[in-house]
């Protein structure tokens, strides 16, 4: 047996390297960003505490605030399209993969279907721009060049890339459904369709919450695909601007906009709160559900 003192010392020694890297390069920058949002750091007199002045500018300055709300709304739409299209698609494919009719081809299908998720956004953006090119592509209409369709088009490109992720989550959950349950249902005369909705689906239901929250976090960190397609001031007329590109412009600057680190820190904090709020509500609901089951 190890004494408690030795256990503490060993724990510390083993965990410290990982903990240090994680704290210094992930937690600390985020915390510093929040602190920084209350300061004016670029002034001649060094760092001065300015309270909520950065936030005031973010929410009241005519262009800055208009662009922010635009990016937030676009981001919500970006998230909603992912959720609405990706989840049913993932469910259908996971159900097909685990239908028991595939034999040895199951693994091949699974691997091939996941390939888009392994590509870099540069390729995804370029390929789809080529395919939907109005001059000689499949669609004779400038989907990316029209304000009303550009965001939906980019969202669907991203859905094409990432539908494999919900598919894999649901696939693994379906594989974990005990065989006896399915066999018992079959003996009782239930067909494949009934077995799926009455037996398997309720058992994998918790996965949908997890997929929704991960999709939320990932889409609210979105940047790469929009940037690869449309640069840092994503047009037409900012119709494809999301929080990631907006954030990038505030601290990095772009044509027509000066770089402002403090304002960028305020934007980062607001995005962080948006993500944190929804994530906390999700975990609070999960906790309550678990409690009500255990009673």
């Amino acid at each position, binding site marked *: 047996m190890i004494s408690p003192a030795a256990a503490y010392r060993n724990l510390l020694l083993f965990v410290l390297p990982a903990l240090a890297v994680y704290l210094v390069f992930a937690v600390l920058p985020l915390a510093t960003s929040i602190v920084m949002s209350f300061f004016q750091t670029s002034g001649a007199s060094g760092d001065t505490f300015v309270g909520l002045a950065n936030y005031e500018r973010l929410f009241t300055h005519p262009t800055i605030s208009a662009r922010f709300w635009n990016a937030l709304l676009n981001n919500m739409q970006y998230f909603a399209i992912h959720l609405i299209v990706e989840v049913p698609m993932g469910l259908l494919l996971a159900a097909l993969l685990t239908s028991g009719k595939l034999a040895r081809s199951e693994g091949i299908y699974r691997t091939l279907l996941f390939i888009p998720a392994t590509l870099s956004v540069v390729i995804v953006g370029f390929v789809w721009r080529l395919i939907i090119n109005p001059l000689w592509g499949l669609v004779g209409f400038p989907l990316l060049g029209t304000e009303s369709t550009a965001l939906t088009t980019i969202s669907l490109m991203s859905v094409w890339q990432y539908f494999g992720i919900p598919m894999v989550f649901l696939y693994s959950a379906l594989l974990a459904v005990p065989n006896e349950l399915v066999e018992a249902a079959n003996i009782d005369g239930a067909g494949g369709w009934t077995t799926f909705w009455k037996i398997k689906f309720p058992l994998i239901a918790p996965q949908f919450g997890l997929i929704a929250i991960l999709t939320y976090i990932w889409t609210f960190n979105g940047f790469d695909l929009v940037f690869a397609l449309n640069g840092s001031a994503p047009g037409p007329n900012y119709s494809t601007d999301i929080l990631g590109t907006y954030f990038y412009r505030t601290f990095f600057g772009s044509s027509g906009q000066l770089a402002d680190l403090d304002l960028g820190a305020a934007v980062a904090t607001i*995005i962080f709160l948006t993500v944190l709020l929804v994530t906390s509500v999700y975990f609070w609901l999960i906790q309550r559900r678990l409690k009500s089951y255990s009673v």
Partner: protein
Amino acid sequence: MSAPDLTMRVARRRQDREPWTLERIIVHALLILFVLLAIGPVLIVIINSLKTTPAIFGGPFDLPTAKTFSLEGYKRVFTRGNFIVNYRNSLIVTVTTIVLTVVLSTLAAFALVEYRVRVASLLAGLFVLGIMLPIRLGTIPLIQMMLAWKLMDTLAALILVYTAMSIPIAVTLMVTYFRTVPTDIKEAARMDGASELRTFWIVLPLVRPGLAAVAALTMLPVWNDLWFPLILAPSRQNQTVTLGVQQFVGQFMNDYPALLAALTLGAVPLVLLFTLFSRQFISGLSKGYSK
């Protein structure tokens, strides 16, 4: 091969001999349709990268023939682009990040499972929270840190940030694997007078599938990231493949053979690696996040 694996294989072989019912045909047809949707666009890029410019525009969906086949695009990528350097950089960054992540998170996960003192569960919780942490939002202080430490525009900056980004999911995943190691083995090792580090070495082979899963899961987001290379290592000699291809696309907008060749070169290694390790990747993905 373990017993369940064997029974699964036997069952699958039996399924292979089953008659082609309508239901079975529909399942295959739907899956083939989605597979075409998934890999069709990738195949278009690869096929057209091997053709001449007129052939690309004349028949974008045709296979290259003896007349239209051309490797000019690849030649121009290597002469005009910066591909050798890009590849070297991406390899250094990805491999170093994977090694650091695997080593650090395995040590941490072993201890979190092994030493059941009260802080252990607190620390484990701290790592789980990190899975949800949007690390990009800390970019501004990261830039300032890298400037202060003279690490701005170096591959080291990328490696440090990516390792921090990968550790939370890696630790959480490894904890689930270490939980499955029987206590007897560790106690037996200690009885024989093994040190704690030695005990760690003894149980390490038992969590090998976990190590593979962590490596597979770390590889993709690091290789494909555009944000941090753009901000922390943008100069020509430090560009990764993803950033290099992005800039190449911007510069040679009209040289389609070269563009398609660059895109193919950027994608193929990862797709091949994924195909090899897809089992590990998929089990890592579903186990790591379903906490």
